[in-house]
């Protein structure tokens, strides 16, 4: 049994839902993200938020998987602050939807001033509504700098408790920074650009299993919606206990997400 706490199912097929269910997935959370192209209007986001809060939960339920979501405009579309703020204005009306857990995946992409401005607007919204926050950290060479800028930005919001913020896509050079500042951390199991299942298990061995989870971040690019069960196999094959495997792939996401008061397993 496992939870995939970060997967973009709007980009995946129904067959993927079936394979995830067969592998033991009981619940997922789906952050709003970049579609691979910039939307031409805020209305495009309105329709996307409807898909995340209405259609996708029904599709997941066909396979006994409970679907949850996070809403935002992704940092890749935050370079136009006027446009981004129009999108942010749409979010409050969706917060009453029962599968919305919080604001995410917000953060930075290229570590620009405009991205920081929109990150701050999202953080204000989360603080105002006392919501959980799921943070995207930048890719590749931009990750270390971006992770530090993001943590500083969050610290400027005194009402946001770090224990209610998960900073995702950590790797060996950022995981300690995140955990030492009291945040939760997520490892994304992703070909080429993030963690392999082997490296994720190495990180558990080096940093322990507290406040740390794994996810597939399966999306429209090269990715693997079965990455979490593959990491479970990696842990078991190294001789880690079933208790440890369950903690990182089920108990930890359950503990963090339950703070929303809305997270349910099937």
């Amino acid at each position, binding site marked *: 049994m496992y939870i995939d706490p970060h997967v973009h199912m709007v980009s995946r097929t129904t067959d993927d839902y079936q394979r995830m269910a067969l592998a033991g997935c009981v619940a997922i959370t789906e952050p709003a993200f*970049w579609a691979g192209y910039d939307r031409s209007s805020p209305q495009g986001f309105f329709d996307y938020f409807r898909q995340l809060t209405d259609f996708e939960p029904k599709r997941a339920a066909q396979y006994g998987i409970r679907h949850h979501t996070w809403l935002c405009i992704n940092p*890749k579309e935050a*370079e136009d602050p006027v446009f981004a703020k129009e999108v942010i204005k749409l979010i409050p009306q969706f917060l009453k939807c029962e599968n919305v857990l919080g604001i995410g995946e917000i953060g930075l*992409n*290229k*570590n*620009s*001033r*405009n*991205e*920081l401005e929109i990150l701050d607007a999202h953080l204000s919204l989360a603080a105002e509504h006392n919501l959980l926050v799921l943070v995207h950290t*930048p*890719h*590749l*060479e*931009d*990750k*270390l*700098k971006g992770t*530090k*800028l993001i943590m500083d930005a969050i610290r400027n919001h005194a009402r946001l408790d770090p224990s209610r913020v998960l900073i995702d896509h950590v*790797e*060996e*050079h950022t995981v300690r920074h995140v955990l030492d500042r009291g945040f939760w951390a997520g490892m994304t199991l992703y070909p080429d*650009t993030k963690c392999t299942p*082997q*490296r994720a298990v*190495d990180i*558990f*061995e*080096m*940093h*322990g*299993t*507290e406040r740390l989870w794994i996810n597939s971040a399966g999306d429209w690019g090269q990715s693997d919606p079965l990455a979490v069960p593959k990491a479970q196999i990696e842990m078991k*094959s*190294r*001789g*880690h*206990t079933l208790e*440890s495997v369950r*903690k990182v792939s089920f108990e930890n996401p359950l503990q963090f997400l339950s703070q929303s008061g809305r997270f349910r397993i099937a």
Partner: protein
Amino acid sequence: MPGPTPPPISKRAVVDRYFLEHRAKVIDIAAFLDRVDRAQAAAGEADAQDFRVKALEACCRVLLDGKPDRARRVLELLSDHSTEPIAKASTKGATGATHV
């Protein structure tokens, strides 16, 4: 596993399990560097070594320095260490390396 813990399997078992996979990856890196050497610069393209290839070679030196935390140090070597936000993002993508 509340805190740091070594792999439950032995050092020999780690090598037995992962050696062939990483043997293949080292050969991939060697073949990639050979491929870059064999390729011709396009018209107008600088013939100087690409900063990404230089960064990869610097990473290889980290692998051989005998010190721990190689993965963290390689990632730091490939990272932007500036601290101020940039004025404006001109692209969405990342190259994977910085000038070293």
